């Protein structure tokens, strides 16, 4: 499976990465190179093999649905690039 420029554009959009024309070309070549190598996997017989989602054999524990951390608004906003009146600021999204 080889990918073309329009696929690179589409994937970049999905990944929320702005890619200029030169980068697009480089990425296309690099991704094709990597994917060609990854394609080796298609030859492996995985008939009746269940996908392995985790190496852990221990059941994931349930915990009570109670508040355990006490972070204040100031802490949460302490790393925000832009904040106002106790909120994160984003570009206008509602017309």
């Amino acid at each position: 499976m080889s990918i073309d420029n329009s696929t690179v554009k589409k994937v970049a959009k999905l990944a929320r990465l702005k890619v200029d024309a030169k980068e697009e070309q480089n990425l296309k070549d690099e991704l094709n190179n990597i994917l060609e190598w990854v394609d080796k996997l298609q030859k492996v017989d995985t008939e009746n093999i269940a996908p392995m989602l985790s190496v852990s054999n221990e059941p994931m524990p349930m915990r009570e649905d109670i508040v355990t951390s006490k972070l204040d608004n100031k802490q949460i906003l302490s790393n925000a690039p832009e904040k106002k009146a106790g909120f994160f600021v984003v570009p206008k999204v509602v017309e």
Partner: protein
Amino acid sequence: MTDFSKLNISSALLGLKKKDFKSVELTEYFINQINKKEKLNCFITKTFDKAIDMAKKSDEKIIKNRELGSLEGIPIGMKDLFCTKDIRTTAGSKILDSFIPFYESTVSQNLWNSGAVLLGKTNMDEFAMGSANTTSFFGNVINPLKSKNNDKDLVPGGSSGGSASSVAAGLCLAATGSDTGGSIRQPASFCGLVGLKPTYGRCSRFGMVAFASSLDQAGPITLTVEDSARMLQSMVSYDFKDSTSSKKKMENLLKYKKYDLKGKRVGVPKEYLLEGLNPEIKKAWDLGISWFESAGSEIVEISLPNTESALPTYYVIAPAEASANLARYDGIRYGFRAEEKSDLTQLYEETRAQGFGKEVKRRLMIGTYVLSAGYYDAYYLKALKVRKLISDDFSKAFERCDLILTPTTPNVAFPIGEKQTDPVEMYLNDVLTVPASLAGLPAISISACLNSESLPIGLQIIGKPFEESSILSAASIIEDSRGF
């Protein structure tokens, strides 16, 4: 007067206990060394004031002989992907350049509870994506070791390159690392050290900047096997804040010394004899085998038939998980934010385009692609199935042997700038470390000998799940046999 340059954790603990020197003196010595060897670029953030404070507190405890931790007064480096409260944590990325966590990772907290002293946050490949420590936004790290044939600066390996280089250069007594596909073992091998990746689930991932969550594990990089046991003992804990944290009790790791290798079966996987494996590394492997024979172990040839598929499997699964994990960097809640923001999508796209480096973008693209509609089954699901086969290979092999002995890397440390142009060639660095990662197994790398250029060659020992003490014990056979 103690020669601080000759210390390791065990001997330093003894010296502190006997009051030959204070932790503050030891800490000042390392601060001085870090300043002297600035050129190696081992640290992204130095925390010298904090180090002195922590050392003073340790000294008070030592004087009173009360509440002493198992690493009381020991100065260490902390890989810059462990969140440290009120101390900048960057994961080697521009996108986290200004990030100051308001919480502490469980692994680092465990180390502070044991009395360790923080000298600083060590440099690393951006988001732990790299095998040469050349992808850091804060510049590449230099290996303190050199070939005897030339003066070229060598890579320390990666992604825990700053940690390995700082321990090898004598800038701290030990450092933490994280290993997703080899990021502890490979740099330990390149720098002549001991690097241990425990069983998946041993160390809490809470507060570790995530790369590939089903693979990421913290572990120590140290000078000796005993130091590795001491560090790991402190780092491990069950943690309800990490849903994959294991409840299995960790035994006293220093008991590794009592684990007898006599009669144990050491497996040698024929598939690891790669085409292109450096002949000197093959020789070192044979040497390692002979040491285990001398120790009374039985050597058995084993087969891990899906070894060849491990690396491509890893390069589907790890980028896929990374593309999900790194979706959080959007320029809204923390970290770098681009100037361009006419609308929200543009803000995201510009922030991520300017905030991430080349290798990270490459992997985000791969990860997004293999998870996208139409390709998910062919790539991601396929890789998960092959991962099962690789894991089953190990389970079967461990019916015939107790430990597996392999080289750590197909080559020794190489000059900075080489092997960087072709991503696939770069990924081959991890070919011998990735299989154990995919299976979640504990593995250790230890320097076995030097090659003809006097660069270290590491051997890797892979153990059964949760048998960290047996791999430590096997590593000590190499440590005792190698004659340095």
